[in-house]
């Protein structure tokens, strides 16, 4: 039973299956320890609401199911990172009353190929959607977060 009205575009389970096909790897966990926690907070503007995050990894590909609040409700998003660049970003569950336009490929396709700069920003600006600004910002933050976590998993995040 949902706590509030939500649109489920794809279940997290289905997203992971779609991302890896029949060879879905075992889940792994990354703990948000002190240093990483600070970097996550620098990206999100707040602590991630859990101590650890689950992910799936096959070679240089990692998949993440992450949540961030748009205006008042969390947006559940699936993100696949491959060789340090976003391969897929998909809105899985949307709970706000406005801003749902971010679910469309015309918006999410902008994230394909994006990587993280040294200042932990996306290497290219994402064009917004009028009336969906907060949702756009939330997804941008999640894109950056997935890239940071991917770097950490692969030990690429040197500081």
């Amino acid at each position, binding site marked *: 039973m949902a706590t509030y009205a939500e649109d489920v575009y794809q*279940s997290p*389970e289905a997203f992971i299956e779609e991302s890896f096909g029949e060879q879905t790897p075992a*889940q792994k966990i990354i703990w948000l320890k002190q240093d990483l926690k600070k970097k996550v907070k620098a990206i999100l503007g707040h602590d991630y609401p859990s101590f650890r995050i689950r992910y799936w990894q096959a070679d240089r590909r990692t998949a993440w199911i992450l949540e961030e609040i748009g205006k008042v409700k969390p947006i559940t998003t699936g993100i696949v990172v491959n060789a340090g660049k976003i391969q897929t970003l998909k809105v899985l569950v949307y709970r706000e009353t406005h801003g749902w336009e971010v679910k469309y490929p015309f918006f999410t396709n902008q994230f394909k190929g994006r990587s993280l700069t040294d200042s932990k920003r996306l290497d290219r600006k994402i064009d917004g959607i009028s009336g969906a600004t907060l949702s756009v910002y939330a997804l941008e933050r999640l894109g950056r977060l997935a890239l940071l976590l991917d770097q950490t998993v692969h030990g690429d995040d040197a500081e």
Partner: protein
Amino acid sequence: MQNRPRNNKNGRNRPSRILLRWHRRLGEAIGAILLVLCATGLFLNHSEDFNLRHIRIQAPWLLDWYGLEPVSDPVSYSSGQSTVSWLEGTLYFNGQPRTETAAVLGVIATPDLHVVASGDSIILLARDGELVERLTSASLPHETLVGIGIDTTQQPAVNTPLGIFTTDDSFLEWKTPVNIGPISWSKAIDTPPAIEQSILEAYRGNGLSAYRVILDIHTGRFFGDWGKWIADLTVIGLILLTLSGLYYAVFLRKKQRRS
């Protein structure tokens, strides 16, 4: 005695008298509401001087009026020495709000965690109630959970439409148990009164600010949709009062004096 003609301009039916009569009636009709509007307006104008935003009102009748009262009772589960509860979308740990989740159907305790199962997710809380992780359907053996319990080896077990699955403390892998023994399924308990009180206080928050209540009275919203319309009609009445008063003062009295 001379009979006065009905529409005698020197009598009670001349225009100025009719206008004054209606002016008075309108004033009487909206006078009380106008007083409230003026008084609340004064307070709002000086809301910072009176610190109205920081004065909190927690009168139960007022909170009920605003609907800050849950429509159902909390559902609670015992987990170790703690109580995990759920009320209208919020998970509570020993009476303190923790996170939002769908209706909880069971809670179990492992040595390190409180494991909270709702219909489509599992929330892991540390022993002190801090949120460790939220497991979505991608991390569960099935997207629908029906129950949660502990097996004979003290490992977590979930019941799903596809059967029972168990896991270990990492919650990374689920397996179909072989030779499964009895599972101790989580069951709801009566919410302890102190916990219920805490939950209710948390649900209601800090009450309402005086500013909010006075503003709602001022705009009529305090009384719902009808209140809004009455406020609007009062304002229209005030406009008519002003116009009629001005008309009388500027035109009709002059005319009267000349005649």
